[in-house]
């Protein structure tokens, strides 16, 4: 009988010890989970910092490269103004090569963007639609900074007349 009583006490003690162990374990796990949560937040913040830094560095690098890229852009697309006669001659060749008849041509020249000169040409050509379209395509395909600002087509009794406003940039 006494042995059974001792066994009962041992069983109760084991249960109490197990309960204490479980409670302490839960407490420790909870504290650790919360610190893990904080660590995850910190890791996310650190990653975000690195992303911001990388973006700022890239932006700065892009601006550092701006002068060189602008110079490259200028040298490849904006010819010096002494190339203007060749440009004008080239335009004439394109007009006659397309089979179009030039009607009139006017110029306006003004300085822009610090060291560039804008030449605005207004001219009209008459001829078939296919030839006008070919001419537009050739102008648009030129590597230099020449583009058509506007094109106006007008049908007349004698045929099609296309009026162009063209802009070309030259370095001063």
């Amino acid at each position: 009988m006494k042995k059974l009583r001792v066994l009962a006490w041992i069983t109760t003690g084991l249960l109490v010890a197990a309960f204490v162990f479980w409670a302490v374990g839960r407490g420790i796990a909870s504290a650790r989970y919360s610190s893990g949560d904080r660590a995850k937040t910190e890791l996310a913040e650190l990653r975000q910092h690195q992303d911001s830094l990388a973006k700022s560095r890239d932006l700065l690098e892009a601006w550092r490269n701006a002068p060189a890229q602008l110079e490259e852009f200028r040298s490849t697309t904006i010819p010096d103004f002494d190339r203007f006669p060749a440009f004008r001659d080239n335009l004439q060749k394109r007009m006659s090569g397309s089979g179009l008849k030039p009607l009139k041509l006017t110029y306006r020249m003004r300085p822009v963007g610090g060291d560039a000169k804008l030449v605005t040409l207004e001219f009209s050509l008459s001829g078939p639609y296919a030839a006008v379209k070919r001419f537009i395509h050739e102008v648009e395909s030129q590597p230099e900074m020449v583009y058509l600002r506007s094109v106006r087509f007008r049908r007349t009794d004698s045929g099609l007349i296309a009026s162009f406003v063209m802009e070309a940039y030259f370095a001063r």
Partner: protein
Amino acid sequence: MKYLDLNVASKPRLNYLRYWGLTVLLLAAAGILTWNGFVALGGEDGLTLEEKTEMLSLRRADRGYADSLEKFAAETRRLKSRWEGRVRFANALISRKANSFIGGLNLLEKALPETVYLNRLTLDQDRPNRLEMEVLVPAYTELINAYRRLSSYQLEITSEIPDRTGRYRVSLSLRIGK
């Protein structure tokens, strides 16, 4: 001879089944609690080993984060104030050069019915997404057909003037591109 059966015990008799049943139950409960305690202690703390390593290196890299960020921003502001005007000018030129009128003409060739004649057409960089035109349509049915075909290009009609011969002179504009 019949014996008298008397219970002379000082305490009640132990119910063994109840005793052992309760003992087994308590031991099982203790076992479950211990198991759960181990499970709680052995659980993950939220970060993998790679993440912990990454965090250590990120912490090192993060020293002086605010200073570096401010330094980059100040340098960027300085360069931007000096070059932004020229960059904007270059971008505007590139945008103009990239705009093609050929695309608009191709679209118009596809969209206009063959019976519709073009009187006037304007393509302008200042309105790069619109084609403005005046067309001549030989009859009313052709006019409706033309409107049906052109309506998918955000057709805007400014005027529609019939003449004595039944033809219609229509001023309209279409949207090209997005």
